[in-house]
C-alpha cells in the first residue's frame, strides 16, 4: 500500500464562518423609527460581514489567528494525504468540522486558506437523490440525478437497466416521483449512487437512512467499491461501520486533526477518551439552539437514578433521558418525545410524553421532562437519541435534532444479567431479562 500514489493531498486547510447575526430590539417607537431609516446601511454591513473577514488578523506562517468572537473556525489547519485505494473514515463529534471538510473537498464551499489537490474523478454523496424533482418520473430523475453526480449520459444509458433493477422500483419507473413513498425515493437515489464509478468517492452519512435490508445491500456495494481500488472518504457517527469499512481513520476535533491511524485504533481511542458525542448537550447560544416558534430545546442529558450524568450505564439499571425546553407561546398542545437508535442506525423505539398532568394545553415557560428507560431492556452498545417536540393542532415540528446525545449500555459478565452465564456475543435490538420457569420430572430411564 505504501508504494501507492497520494490521490488526495490536503495542505493547511482553513475555513471560517461567521455566526450569530443578532437582531437589535428597540424599546421605544422613536428608536424603532430611527432604526428603520438607518437599517438599510446596517443590513448591508451585516450581510457583507458574512463573507468579509477583514477583522481577522492572521499570520500564515505562525498560524496564530486573532479572531473576533463571532467567527468560528470550522477547519483549522487540516493537512493529510490519502493514498489510492485507501478507505478513509472521518470521525468526530458534531460540529468538529467533518462535514465542512467534505464540503470543501467536493468544491461546494471554498476554503478560507490552504489548498487541496485531488487526482482523479471525484464524486460526492452528501445527500441521497440530490436534485430529484417531484414532477419528473423515476426514469427522468435517474438521468438528472446521475448527471448531477457527475455521470455522462452515455454512462447512464448503459447502466440504466441495472440501476432500475437494483432499486426494485421497475413498476413505477414512469411514474412521477412525487407519487413515490419516501422509501422508494431513497432506494432510487441510492441505486443511482451505487452505480457511480469515480476514482474517489466522498460520502457523508447518507447511509443512515432507508430500510435496513436495503442499507446492507448498499454497504455491500460500497465494500465492493473499496476493493476495486477506488479511494473512499467516509464521514460517519457509526463507529462499527467505520471500523468495518475503513482501513484508516482521522479524528477531527474543533476543526483540527487529533488522531490519524488504522481505523480500529483511532475508533477505540476515540470511544475510550470520552470525547464521543457525550451524554449531555447544552445550548448556550440562543442563535444555535434548535427550535421553532413555539418551543426550543435548551439541553438534553442522560442520567442514572441518582441524577448523575454518565457516559455508560449498567444494563440492569434504569436510564433517564432528560430534556429541558422552553415553551415560548402558551396554550399549545405539545408532544415531547424521543426516538432511540442503536449504532447500526436501527430505530429501536419512540417514546412519547404521556404524563396525564401535561396532556392538555400548556402555559409558556421552561420545562424539564425525563423519560425513564427501564433496566434490563436495551441491548448492549452505543445508543443515539433524537429529542423532539411537535405541536399538535396544527402539527408542526418544533425541533427534532438527531444524535443530540448518546450513551453506552454495558452488559457486565458477573452473571446477574440477561446473558446469564453465556460469555459470547448476543444479538438483538433489546435484551430483556425474562422470567423463566421449568418443571422438572424425575423420570426413571
Amino acid at each position, binding site marked *: 500500500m505504501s508504494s501507492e500514489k497520494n490521490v488526495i493531498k490536503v495542505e493547511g486547510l482553513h475555513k471560517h464562518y461567521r455566526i450569530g447575526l443578532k437582531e437589535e430590539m428597540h424599546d421605544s417607537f422613536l428608536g424603532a423609527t430611527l432604526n428603520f431609516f438607518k437599517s438599510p446601511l446596517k443590513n448591508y454591513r451585516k450581510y457583507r460581514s458574512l463573507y468579509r473577514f477583514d477583522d481577522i488578523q492572521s499570520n500564515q506562517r505562525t498560524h496564530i489567528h486573532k479572531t473576533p468572537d463571532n467567527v468560528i473556525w470550522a477547519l483549522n489547519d487540516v493537512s493529510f494525504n490519502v493514498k489510492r485505494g485507501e478507505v478513509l473514515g472521518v470521525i468526530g463529534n458534531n460540529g468538529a468540522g467533518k462535514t465542512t471538510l467534505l464540503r470543501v473537498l467536493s468544491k*461546494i464551499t471554498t476554503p478560507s486558506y490552504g*489548498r487541496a489537490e485531488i487526482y482523479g474523478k471525484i464524486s460526492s454523496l452528501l445527500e441521497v437523490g440530490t436534485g430529484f424533482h417531484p414532477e419528473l418520473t423515476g426514469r*427522468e430523475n435517474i438521468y*438528472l440525478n446521475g448527471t*448531477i453526480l457527475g455521470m455522462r449520459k452515455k454512462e447512464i444509458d448503459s447502466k440504466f437497466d441495472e440501476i432500475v433493477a437494483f432499486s426494485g422500483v421497475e413498476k413505477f419507473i414512469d411514474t412521477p416521483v412525487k407519487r413515490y413513498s419516501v422509501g422508494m425515493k431513497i432506494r432510487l437515489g441510492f441505486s443511482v449512487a451505487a452505480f457511480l*464509478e469515480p476514482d474517489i468517492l466522498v460520502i457523508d452519512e447518507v447511509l443512515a437512512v432507508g430500510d435496513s435490508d436495503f442499507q446492507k445491500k448498499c454497504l455491500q456495494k460500497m465494500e465492493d467499491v473499496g476493493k476495486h481500488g477506488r479511494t473512499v472518504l467516509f464521514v460517519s457517527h457509526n463507529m462499527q461501520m467505520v471500523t468495518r469499512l475503513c482501513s484508516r481513520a482521522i479524528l477531527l476535533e474543533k476543526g483540527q486533526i487529533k488522531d490519524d491511524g488504522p481505523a480500529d485504533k483511532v475508533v477505540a481511542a476515540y470511544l475510550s477518551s470520552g470525547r464521543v458525542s457525550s451524554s449531555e448537550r447544552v445550548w448556550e447560544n440562543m442563535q444555535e439552539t434548535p427550535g421553532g416558534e413555539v418551543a426550543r430545546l435548551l439541553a438534553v442529558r442522560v442520567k442514572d437514578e441518582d441524577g448523575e450524568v454518565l457516559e455508560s450505564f449498567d444494563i440492569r439499571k434504569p436510564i433517564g433521558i432528560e430534556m429541558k425546553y422552553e415553551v415560548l407561546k402558551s396554550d399549545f398542545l405539545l408532544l415531547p418525545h424521543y426516538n432511540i437508535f442503536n449504532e447500526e442506525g436501527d430505530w429501536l423505539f419512540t417514546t412519547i410524553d404521556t404524563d396525564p398532568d401535561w396532556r392538555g394545553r400548556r402555559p409558556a415557560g421552561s420545562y424539564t421532562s425525563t423519560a425513564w428507560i427501564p433496566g434490563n431492556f436495551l441491548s448492549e452498545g452505543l445508543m443515539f437519541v433524537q429529542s423532539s417536540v411537535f405541536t399538535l393542532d396544527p402539527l408542526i415540528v418544533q425541533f427534532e435534532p438527531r444524535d443530540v446525545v448518546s450513551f453506552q449500555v454495558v452488559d457486565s459478565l458477573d452473571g446477574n444479567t440477561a446473558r446469564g452465564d453465556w460469555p459470547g456475543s448476543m444479538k438483538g435490538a433489546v435484551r430483556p431479562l425474562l422470567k423463566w420457569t421449568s418443571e422438572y420430572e424425575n423420570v426413571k430411564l
Partner: protein
Amino acid sequence: MINYISRKLNSAKIIAKHKPEEVTIVEHRVGWQLIDFKELKKYRDLFYFLVWREIKVLYAQTILGFSWAILQPLIQIVIFTIVFGKVARLSTDGIPYFLFSTVAIIPWTYMSQAMLQSSQSLVQGQQLLDKVYFPRLLYPLTPVLARLVDFGISILIIIVVALYYRVIPTWNLLYLPLFILLMVSIPTGIGLWLSALAIRFRDVKHAMPFVVRMLIYTAPIVYSASSIPETYRFIYSMNPIVGVIEGFRSCILGTAMPWPFIWPGILTSFILLFGGALYFKRMEWLFVDVI
C-alpha cells in the same frame, strides 16, 4: 454476479489506462477570472438535463400545457391593442396596431421571463447549491435556454398574424438570427449580474417583478421609436431592448433597418454580458456561504 463484477473491473482498468487523470485543485482564488469553458464542456450533459428539467416541469400538471406559451403573450397583445391602439390611438407609422405589438411582445415576453427566472436561479437552486458542485454558471444559464422553447412556440403567433395581414417576407428576415442572439444575450447578461447579487441580497427578488413591469415602457413595445426626439435617440438606444424590438419589427415587417437604434444596444449588451460573466466568477466562491 461474478460476471458482472469482473466486467466492471475490466471496464475500470480500460478507463484507467486510456484516460488522462483529472486534477482538481481546491483553493481560494481571489480576483478576476474568466469563464472556464473546458469545465463547462465537461458538464454539458448535466446542462442538457437541467434545461430539459426546467422545460418539463414548467407546465407539469396543467391542462393547457404548452398552450400557455401562446396564450400569455396573445392575451397581452389583445389588451395592448385595445388600450394603446384603439383607446389611446398611439402612432405606429401606419402599421396595424395588432401586428405592430405582436412583433414586439413575443421577444419581450421571452426577455422579461428569462430575466426574472435567471436572476432568481441561484436563490431557487440553493438546495442543490449546498449539496453538490457543478459550475455555478449553469444556474443562471438554464432558464435563459429553457425559455427559448416557449419563445419558439410563440413564434407561431407571429407567423399567423403576419399571414393574416398578408405581410410579404423580405430579405430583412435574414437578419433575424442576429436579433435572436441579441435577445438571448440580454437576459443572460442581466441574469449573471442579478443572480449573483440576489443570493446575497434578497432585495432583488422584490425589485425584479416591479422593474420588469417598468422596463416595458423603456422600449418601443407599445409605442413607436420614431416618436423619440432625435436628440435623445442615442441615449434611448443604449437600452439593448430597443435594438431587439426595432430589429424584430424591421426583419418581419420589411421596413428599413433602423441601425442607429440598434448599434448602441449591441454595445451595451456586450458590456453587460462580459461584465456579468466577470462579476459572477468573482463572486462565485461566496454563494454557498451566504445562503
